């Protein structure tokens, strides 16, 4: 569960990134967070992942209060999340299998668990036949699938995708979104941060629109009808 209650965030340079943001995302939801550049979307993601702390207000993620959480507890919060980035962020000298297994190794999973889980997740994202390839041998869409598999392999309760289709063509973008929808149907909460209006409007999902650090709209109608001022 994700809960933002009167959240304010100001940076050291004086920028007021968020000005009283309120929303709640229940388990199992699929939510788009949309808005133009500089609206505060990235700040929302950074708050959820614990990269920064709120200046005021409360951010509660899966029972962790991000305003008071100890630094040593952050890894345990992040194990409940899976993050997918626009630029994939794969390790170039590791194979697809090793990239995904890496995420399990760093949290202490046994080799037996890794051998069981990694092939399953790669099959889920449709890359079971590409396990032994390296990232540079894959297309953009395939690399993003690997990134999704890595985000998924530790069975997180929330997948956060930050502009996951930013480097992909429309066809691949749709494939990725369909994959994320499929993951959501299996029970994982999915947050997709994007500014791609067309993509959002293709899906009937909840849309939270942010601009100028405030929530402009929060609707279940699944339509990105917010226009940049």
């Amino acid at each position, binding site marked *: 569960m994700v809960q933002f209650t009167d959240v304010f965030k100001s940076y050291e340079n004086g920028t007021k990134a968020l000005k009283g943001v309120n929303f709640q995302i229940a388990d199992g939801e699929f939510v788009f967070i949309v808005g133009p550049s500089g609206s505060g979307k990235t700040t929302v993601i950074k708050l959820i*992942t614990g*990269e920064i702390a709120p200046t005021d207000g409360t951010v509660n993620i899966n029972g962790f209060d991000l305003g008071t959480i100890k630094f*040593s507890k952050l*890894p*345990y*919060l*992040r*194990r409940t*999340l*899976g*993050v997918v980035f626009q630029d994939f*962020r794969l*390790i170039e000298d590791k194979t697809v299998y090793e990239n995904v297994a*890496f*995420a399990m190794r*760093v*949290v202490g999973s046994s080799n037996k668990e890794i051998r069981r889980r990694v092939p399953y997740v790669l099959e889920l994202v449709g890359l079971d036949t590409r396990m032994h390839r390296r990232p540079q041998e894959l297309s953009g869409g395939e690399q993003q699938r690997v990134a999704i598999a*890595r985000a998924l392999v*530790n069975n997180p309760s929330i997948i956060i995708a930050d502009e996951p289709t930013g480097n992909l063509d429309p066809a691949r973008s749709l494939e990725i979104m369909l994959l994320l929808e499929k993951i959501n149907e299996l029970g994982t909460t999915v947050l997709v941060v994007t500014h791609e209006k067309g993509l959002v409007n293709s899906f009937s999902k909840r849309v939270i629109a942010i601009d100028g650090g405030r929530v402009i709209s929060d609707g279940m109608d699944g339509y990105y009808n917010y226009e940049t001022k």
Partner: protein
Amino acid sequence: MSFASICVIIACLIIMGSFALLALNVNSIIKTLESENQILAYVDENLSESEARALQSQIEQVANVKSAQFVSRDDAMKSFVSTYDDQSLFDGLDSSVLRHRYIIYLDDIAKMADTQQALVNVQGIAKVSAHLEIGRGFVRVRNIVSAVSLVLVIILFVISLFIMSNTIKLTTFERRDEIAIMKMVGATSGFIRWPFVIEGLILGSIGSLSAYLIQWGVYKLVSDDVIAASGLSFVKALPFATIAAPMLGAFLAVGLGVGIIGSLVAIRNYLKV
């Protein structure tokens, strides 16, 4: 870069070790000289031999006096005459021209002047002869060597730390993407940190062990040459075997310390997020 880091550690440790060995040897020589450096306290010529001998306990109670050895005028005469080849030159010379005396050995050569003054004040002692300048010279040399060694050790330690830290920083920079992913998926700081600490430990160990072996060889060569060149009986190098274990311990401590601290400093910024 790792090779360069090891070489810097070796160089720094050898310089540190060399100065430490120099300081140890100077201290050892000074201690030898202290034990041989004597003050001569001449007894008043009006006192009999038994009265002169009775002064021994008073003399030994003076601060900084380690021991006092009584030499009668007869023994002094015999000792004096024995230094000459033709002893017949001194036939008929009465030992009463000499005084009874005490050969006094000190604990601390730095306090020679004070001790000399205290001995003069002992009732029955007519005159005290001490080579103050030699004593002060020894102390000056010891203080200079100790101070220079300490300063060098500190400077070289800091330099080694800096080089090691930069080496590990390069490694962490090369692996920054991997570190970021590890943090993203929930790796603890300890899990991220330990491979770099191990790397620092390995570099530090290799550097310190290599430096130790080189230091041993250099010391053996230099100490033999120095002793042969000096021609001075009191200049003796400490056997390396007597200092081998503490030296190895010190080298390992410095090498491992540099490795661990350097790597912790290098990785620190990457763990803040």
